[in-house]
């Protein structure tokens, strides 16, 4: 007889049930006759505390709890790309078709389409030996992505039979002779979300991951397989940056998690991504993207699960050998969900009421990022998973426990500042407070593949901006006229760096994305201007004339040069030379 528990307490998203002896921690259960999904998060004797992924209104004492006997899992297989799921992988499009405009309770729908047939291509032969993780075949899931079917965990042996042609995700595509007898393999696999998927070996990131965003790529670059965080007050541009990365980052698969944020922002992605094309392949971006949308008004327990659901899918694509990028907006909402559940459990609170394990949970989440040698006995493929989390501290205050715990684990910090956002300097990433700890590890790759002087330009631009902030103090007190000629050139150049380079409009068709080549040309031109200006100042040019030079206008418009014409940026240097020459000519 199936064991059934009985509810003894309901407090918001937390339900406590008795007679739960047979179940284990983190097992999934169904609560009440409405079959609301929940997960066991604490045991005291045979009393299980359950976080319920749906609203618990109308649930009372005495109602049944049905154990499922397995932990929270996601379905992995063809059909993930282009999908939109809630925090526990219920397909929102199917729910919309079946139920309507609102998410009502107790609905369930298969995460992967059971009817759809995929064209399966075997990549191993009958009689060959396979181990867990070995690729046995492939489905061209979208124009962009070949979905490799891997031998599921726990299976190894000799391929007895393998099919080719049209199959649904549940059809058996291969039979393996294992030590324990025959095992059928279908294209669908399940994986418990709270458990990181295994790999053979982890490497240190060593290649840059370009994003097309100038302040990031030139100043605070990300590495493939790396981690980054974007903290900032409301309205400072966290979501726009995350969307920009999802659009333009040089990764093959994107997992975008809207965790406790706005419904309209997910709609925005859903409407825009099918229209936008990948700059390299020309294919709509949606074909490489999976969306997880557990918006702020959806149940908090499912929000808590959403980041795990997302990162498990990301690991799955990583295991195929892809470079995957995951964005989570916002990890603060995830932390708040943890806090709420922990409060209901009456756990001992840590800082600001967050549970004491906040730091550990954040760390183990970001730890699932990395460059790995994928599990396989047959090939040496590597995959990468890069993770970028937004953080929303109260009042933008960086002493917030979530920010602090995040900074302890991530390697890149893009600090968004309210003041920059108010003056509409976007992206509002502070050039003074942000950092990237990847500069050293990607140095070799960048000097070899981008340019020899990337780091020199970066350092020089940084130096100028830092100098500017010092000089600004003086200007504020005594006025610009008090500055020396060279200092005024610093002020002028820094302003160019800020307005004509760092400032980047996400909503401008051309400016939204800059290739690294274009970025390099732009910054090189500005630094060239700086050096020529200093030279000519020394030769007797008047600072006021330099400040009024016509070429400034061309520099300001570099960002709007379309990608086919970026060589025209090189011509600006000639303009700079000739205008300086003319200036000196006039003098003599």
């Amino acid at each position, binding site marked *: 007889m199936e064991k059934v528990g009985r509810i003894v307490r309901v407090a918001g998203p937390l339900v406590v049930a008795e007679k739960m002896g047979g179940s284990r921690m983190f097992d999934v259960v169904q609560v009440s006759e409405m079959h609301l999904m929940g997960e066991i998060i604490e045991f005291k004797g045979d009393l299980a505390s359950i976080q319920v992924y749906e*609203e618990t*209104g109308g*649930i*009372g*004492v005495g109602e049944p709890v049905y154990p499922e006997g397995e932990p929270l899992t996601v379905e992995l297989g063809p059909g993930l790309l282009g999908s939109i799921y809630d925090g526990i992988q219920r397909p929102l499009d199917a729910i919309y078709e079946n139920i309507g*405009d609102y998410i009502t309770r107790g609905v369930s729908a298969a995460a992967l389409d059971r009817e759809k047939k995929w064209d399966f291509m075997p990549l191993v032969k009958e009689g060959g030996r396979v181990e867990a993780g070995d690729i046995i075949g492939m489905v061209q899931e979208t124009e962009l992505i070949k979905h490799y079917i891997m031998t599921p965990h726990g299976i190894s042996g000799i391929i007895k039979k393998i099919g080719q042609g049209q199959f649904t995700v549940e059809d058996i595509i291969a039979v393996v002779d294992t030590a324990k007898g025959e095992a059928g393999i279908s294209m669908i696999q399940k994986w418990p979300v709270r458990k990181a998927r295994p790999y053979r070996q982890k490497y240190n990131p060593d290649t840059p991951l370009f994003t097309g965003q100038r302040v990031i790529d030139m100043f605070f670059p990300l590495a493939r397989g790396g981690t980054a965080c974007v903290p900032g007050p409301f309205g400072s541009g966290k979501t726009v940056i995350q969307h920009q990365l999802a659009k333009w980052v040089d990764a093959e698969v994107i997992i975008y998690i809207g965790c406790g944020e706005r419904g309209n922002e997910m709609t925005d992605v859903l409407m825009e991504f099918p229209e936008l094309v990948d700059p390299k392949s020309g294919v709509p971006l949606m074909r490489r993207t999976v969306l997880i949308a557990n918006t702020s008004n959806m149940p908090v327990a499912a929000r808590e699960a959403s980041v795990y659901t997302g990162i498990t899918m990301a690991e799955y694509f990583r295991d195929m050998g892809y470079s995957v990028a995951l964005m989570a907006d916002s990890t603060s909402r995830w932390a708040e969900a943890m806090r709420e559940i922990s409060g209901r459990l009456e756990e001992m609170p840590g800082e600001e009421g967050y549970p004491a394990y906040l730091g550990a949970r954040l760390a183990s989440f970001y730890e699932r990022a990395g460059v790995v040698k994928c599990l396989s006995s047959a090939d040496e493929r590597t995959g990468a998973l890069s993770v970028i989390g937004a953080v929303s501290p109260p009042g933008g205050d960086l002493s917030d426990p979530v920010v602090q715990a995040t900074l302890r684990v991530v390697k890149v910090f893009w600090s968004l500042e309210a003041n920059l956002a108010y003056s509409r300097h976007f992206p509002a990433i502070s050039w003074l407070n942000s950092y990237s700890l990847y500069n050293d590890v990607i140095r070799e790759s960048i000097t070899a593949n981008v340019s020899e002087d990337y780091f020199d330009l970066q350092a020089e631009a940084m130096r100028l901006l830092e100098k500017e902030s010092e000089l600004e103090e003086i200007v504020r007190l005594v006025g610009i006229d008090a500055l020396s000629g060279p200092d005024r050139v610093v002020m002028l150049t820094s302003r160019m760096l800020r307005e004509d380079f760092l400032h980047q409009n996400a909503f401008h068709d051309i400016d939204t994305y800059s290739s690294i080549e274009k970025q390099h040309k732009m910054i090189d031109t500005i630094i060239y201007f700086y050096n020529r200006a200093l030279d000519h100042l020394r030769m007797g040019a008047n600072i006021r004339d330099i400040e009024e030079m016509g070429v400034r206008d061309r520099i300001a418009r570099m960002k709007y040069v379309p990608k086919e014409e970026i060589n025209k940026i090189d011509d600006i240097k000639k303009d700079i030379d000739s205008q300086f020459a003319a200036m000196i000519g006039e003098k003599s």
Partner: protein
Amino acid sequence: MLKEYRSIISISGPLLLVEGVEGAKYEELVEIRLDDGSIRNGRVLEVDRDHALVQVFEGTSGIDLENTRVRFMGRGAHMYLSPDILGKVFTGLGKPKTENDRIIAEKSLDINGSPINPYARDYPNEFIQTGISTIDGLNTLVRGQKLPVFSGSGLPHNRIAAQIARQSAVLGKKEEFAVVFVAIGITFEESQYFINDFKKTGAINRSVLVLNLADDPAIERIATPRVGLTCAEYLAFEKDMHVLVILTDMTNYCEALKEVSAARKEIPGRRGYPGYLYTDLATIYERAGRIKGRKGSITQIPILTMPEDDKTHPIPDLTGYITEGQIILSRSLHKKRISPPVDVLPSLSRLKDKGIGEGKTREDHADTFNQLYAAYARGKEVQELAVILGEAALTDIDKIYYKFAEDFENQYISQGEYENRTIEETLDLGWRLLSVFPRAELKRVRDEFLDKYLARFKKDEDNQEGPGA
């Protein structure tokens, strides 16, 4: 038959603990009958074995342990609805205010609603002309947006909200609209100000009023916005109307929530507000938007007064984290008699980009607003500088910025309570103000627009000599 219990074992703040209860459900509606026969309403906050924790909307004064009887109603709080709610007045719990406000219900809906499936949403992108330059030009409102007003005590937020309600129109369209006005703990005068304004314009017949005033029960305020939004969802998504919801004052809502949380002895988050304030507010603010295939929409203008004018206070802070921008009012502009005193720099409409431009407002809109912002920001900096150094120390170009910031406040921000500017008027006004700058300063505007528009307004400047020219 519903069973009645006379087993209240403790009363603390707005909460009752009832024992010996069978089958009570979380979130269930409760009726409390006092000794004098009066009835109060409550809802179940928690059930624990045979104990039920009940929050009483009208407060617990007068409730005693011996004689008060409690009934569990077997359902959650509902709002009774029909198209006749237009023109009617309801209490903060959704009951008809007077006999005249009774309706014959066509259906009833749970006031908590259900989350809109993000996949079902349609992106808000239809420009609403409010006739107010600081909104239309700089913080454009679109249908289905939630755009709060962050105000302070004594600032004219009601005036702005009423002006928006009065003047809002979608260009070139005559469609069914409705206003849901939700008063949360505001004074009688304040609420009367709106009602009189609706009466004057005739909007009253297209309005639903949900009123919890300052002397109404405080805990009831937890239900009040939900009642209003349930009406709005019904009108928008079942009756195809474009609904504007005004929620004022959300600060009072948050105080009520705080009171309940404190009575439950929950671990408080920042400044004593419950840790789940963000999520709770989201379940209100997210009830705005458009739905694919439905004609209607819900646009929300929540108003809140920032305690001590502090934007980092949890109420404005968490609101800003949920809404799609914010209109912030400035006390210093108000003192300068600039009205409406919209603090342009920190105000923002996040959905403006989808609602402006060619075919919606005008092709040059995006560039000019970027330029106006930048110029005003610099103008404000220059003004600060001038305070320290004296105006004489400013460079020529800075002097222009200085003057621009002044003109911008007096001509662009400031406008009459009944002045209804078209979007063309607003955009042209922007150009006229920008035309004092040398062309090279207008970096945020595309050349084609400078060619096309600047010349029109530059003419009158011809005899004046531009600096640096």
